């Protein structure tokens, strides 16, 4: 993953890989902006709540996924431990919130 600045080495394979990676990053970035615009449009146009809230949540989840997997490179190899930690943390947080909302009445 180290950004190789060693330009004296014409490693076409890695060059192509970096290029692909950059394109993926750009696509994800554009998609994130589009999603954000959609979210604003949904709220501005005053859509029905039953439709708007799930849509916003869905967009949020996808954006978090992009954040984790593309910008934080969790899709790449060697990220098993960070994934485990992140999902472990999310799990602990969800259980806590569930307990607070479902079985504790204040």
């Amino acid at each position: 993953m180290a950004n190789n600045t060693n330009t004296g080495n014409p490693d076409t394979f890695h060059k192509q890989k970096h290029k692909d990676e950059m394109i993926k990053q750009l696509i994800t970035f554009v998609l994130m902006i589009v999603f954000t615009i959609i979210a604003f449009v949904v709220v501005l146009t005053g859509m029905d709540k039953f439709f708007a809230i799930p849509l916003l949540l869905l967009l949020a989840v996808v954006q978090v996924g992009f954040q984790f997997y593309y910008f934080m490179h969790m899709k790449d190899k060697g990220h098993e431990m960070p994934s485990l930690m992140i999902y472990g943390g999310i799990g602990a947080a969800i259980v806590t919130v569930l307990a607070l909302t479902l079985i504790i009445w204040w």
Partner: protein
Amino acid sequence: MSNAATQNKGFAAVLWDYLTTVDHKKIGKLYLYAGGLFFLLGGLEAMIIRIQLIKPENNFISAGLYNEMITMHGTTMIFLAAMPLLLGLMNAIMPLQIGARDVAFPFLNSLGFWMFLFGGIMLNVSWFTGGAPDSGWTAYAPLSTQSPGHGVDYYVMGLQLSGAGTLMGGINFLVTIVNMRAPGMTYMRMPLFTWTTFVVSILILFAFPALTVGLFLLMFDRMFGAAFFDVALGGNSIIWQHLFWIFGHPEVYILILPAFGLFSDIFSTFSKKRLFGYTAMVFATILIAFLGFMVWAHHMFTVGMGPVANSIFAIATMAIAVPTGIKIFNWLLTLWGGSITINSAMLWSLGFIPSFTLGGMTGVMVAAAVADYQYHDTYFVVAHFHYVIVGGVVFGILAGLHYWWPKIFGRILHEGMGKLTFWTFFIGFHLTFFIQHFLGLMGMPRRYWVFLEDQGLDTGNLISTIGAFFMAFGVIVFLINAIYTAVKGEKAPADPWDGRTLEWAISSPPPHYNFKQLPLVRGLDPLWIEKMEGKGKMTPAEPLGDIHMPNGSIIPFVMSLGFFIASFGFIYQTNYDIAYIFLFGGMAIGLGSMLVRSLKDDHGYHITKEELEREAD
């Protein structure tokens, strides 16, 4: 360079060395010194509490001061003594056990220590500025939001600082263990102390943010007129209890798990046997950590959460007894049939098993929600948690100190004094706290300044106070032992205990780069494997080469000092406008240091191959 470090350097040079050090072994020592100092302070507070309770309606200290004593005793012992002492052991030993040259982020390590130390000083400054915090170590709202004066403000800012330091330490250990294990050191070959350090770091990472959030809410309530906990303005004071215990329960596992780890190492070393049920031990550790997050509300059974919540949390709590039981039996079976050496480290470990098991048994008792209505806020609970925290954590720290003292300080603690410490402390501990179970069952409430005579509480309290003096005596003997050892103690060889793990493969104390060549690990207890196969020392996993080392830096100290000053600004801006100078000035120093750190490239230095070759093995 490393040899010169031990030769007559001036005091100022040594001081500067420690202020700027990023070496995990020196930071470990700093944690031990600072934690030890706070342990003595907390112990002094405990003695004052026990003297106040020596007889009915005693007048040794005033009621208000008593409240400050119990608050500061609890807070100091948990946050400023037990945790840093354990972090010190982890810092000094864990990188050696995995065969690393340092932790992953040496700068962050140093910053974590200074943040902790300034947080601890912050808390204790309150004694001299009109009263320490007095709302209990749990600082329940609304007691804490309405406590007059600035005591609780010091609690908030002090814990915020030291909590940030601990969080940094946890993240640092995680990255170190994930990334810096020596070749061949797979996860399932790590010594148990390293495993527990790893799991504890996860707990720190997930639990401390809850405390941070709670403290911020309390800070805004007290200093900026918010009303998160003010029921009259639509707040909810129970939220504090939830946030505090979502942090607080994992916190007790943060304390006990490292002790479990080092006991496992000690039992296995002094029984000359591989740890019984290694895999089960690892998974029991992970299971305890996992369950530790699901049980916080068992501290709140009497709040009125309703029967469903109480039952679920009661059962989840009892489930923790299962992995803990697995551990106890595995330790016993490690001892079984072993060739056992009994020295001070081993005495503490052997004393730990029955003491901690008693604490665990009362733990199941207080976990029964229905019965807890009877125990809650009585001395029964006080006895319970002192059995687990003293009988588990303090015994663990002392066992670890006796075991690793040669590795950390290069000298072996005096055995005779070590045994005297153990026996006086052990007897004193049971004398102090065993009787408190019965005081609690007879109805003596926690945190009360005085008790009335002829209620059957007189003798019990007297015995308890006498026990406390025994414990104090044991601690004093340990101090004398430490000083004696530093002056004329026996110089330690690399491997004084016939050890099994990697830290015993290098000299005591280790050179500042730890391993000249990273060792090749061929299984669990790597050094023992080499010994059994007749080689006796580790095979290098790499050719001798330059070693890259980080430069020391004063920035962590300055940064922490900045936030320390800013904390005073936050506390006193409610009274005096001039405090804003401290607030903004301190923040400027802190953030400025961050900026300097970000902008200035520091690539460290290399110890060259030639230099390494010149140093004798």
